[in-house]
C-alpha cells in the first residue's frame, strides 16, 4: 500500500502488512546505499499489528521504483550470502577431512 501526494512521485510512504523489523531494517539499510535516496526510514505504528511504514524520499526518481530496486538489491545480497555460506561450509568440511556433520541451525 502506497500513500503519497498525487503529483509528486518522488516522496512516498509504503505500508507493508505482515512484516516487522526483520525486513524493514534491512530494506532501510539497502535504501540508504542508493545515491538516489535523500531520506528513508521506517516505523512500526503499533507492535501488536504486523505492519510497517517505510518512508522514501528521492532526488526525483519515483519512490516506488527506488523501493523495488532496493528490494532487488537486498535479494541479491541474500543470495550472495547464501552462496558464500555454502562455499564456506564446503571448504570447512573438506579442511576438516570430511567429518560427517549436519547443519541444523543454518546461515
Amino acid at each position, binding site marked *: 500500500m502506497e500513500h503519497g501526494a498525487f503529483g509528486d512521485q518522488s516522496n512516498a510512504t509504503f505500508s507493508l502488512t505482515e512484516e*516487522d*523489523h*526483520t*525486513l524493514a*531494517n*534491512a530494506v*532501510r*539499510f*539497502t535504501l540508504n*546505499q*542508493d*545515491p*538516489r535516496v535523500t531520506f528513508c526510514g521506517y516505523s512500526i505504528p503499533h507492535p501488536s499489528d504486523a505492519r510497517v511504514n517505510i518512508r522514501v524520499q528521492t532526488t526525483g526518481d519515483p519512490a516506488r521504483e527506488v523501493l523495488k*530496486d532496493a528490494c*532487488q*538489491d537486498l535479494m*541479491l*545480497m541474500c543470495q*550472495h*550470502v547464501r552462496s*558464500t*555460506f555454502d562455499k*564456506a*561450509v564446503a*571448504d*570447512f*568440511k573438506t579442511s*576438516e577431512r570430511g567429518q560427517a*556433520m*549436519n*547443519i*541444523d*541451525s*543454518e*546461515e
Partner: protein
Amino acid sequence: MESLSYQRFPKVKIGELKDDYAKLEFRDTDASMANALRRVMIAEVPTIAIDLVEIDVNSSVLNDEFIAHRLDGQCEYCSVEFHLRVKCTGDQTLDVTSKDLISSDHSVVPVDFADPAAYDSSDQQRGVIIVKLCRGQELRLRAIARKGIGKDNAKWSPAATVTFMYEPEIHISEDLMETLTLAQKEAFVDSSPTKVFDLDHATGQVLVVDPEAYTYDDEVLKLAEAMGKPGLIEIYGGEDIFIFTVE
C-alpha cells in the same frame, strides 16, 4: 534500470561447525543485516514439531495435559504421525524417551542432541525423557507433528540461541608498552576477566591472544589510565565485522 548503488557484498567465514553449534564470522556488512539474519534464524526457519496429541491410555504419574505439553509441539504433505506405546512390566523404573516415538514416515525422526562422547555405555543414549513408568503403568498415545515457524509458536524455533557480537580491533602501543615493568605487564594481562592478552615471557611482549573473548568491559583501559599511560591500548568495536554464535 537501477543506478549504481554503494552496495557491499558480505563475506562469510566459518569458525566452528558441529551438529548443534556453529560459529560464523560476517564481514563487510551492517548491523541491520546481521540482526535481520538473527531474527530470521529464530523465528522464520520452518521446522517440524508436535502439534496435536491424542492420548489413549495413560496410567503414569503425570496427567494427560502435562505429557502433551512435554511432547509439544493434516494434510499428509505437511504432517507426520507418531505413535508411542510403552508398558512397564519389569520391576525397574522404565524411562519413556523421545526414542520411543515411532514415526509413520521413516525419514522423520525425533531430534536427539545427545553428545555421544559423553556417554559411557550405549543404554544411556536414550533421547529426551518424557515420563518415567513403574510396574503396571502404561502410556499409549498418537501425536501429529506439523511444519511451522517460530513466529507462530516458539516450539517451532529451530535455534536455541543466536547471538552476534562486534569483533573488536585492539591496538597496543608498543612504545608505551616498553616503558612498563614485567610486573606491570602481568597485572595488565591479568586484569582482563577473559583471556584476551597473554605475556610472552621469552620476549617480554604482551600479545593479543583472542580478540573474540573480549567482552567490552573496560578493565584494561581503566588499568592503563590508573598506571598513568592512557594511550597504552586502544580498542575499537569493529563496526562491520560480526561474530555469530548459533545453537
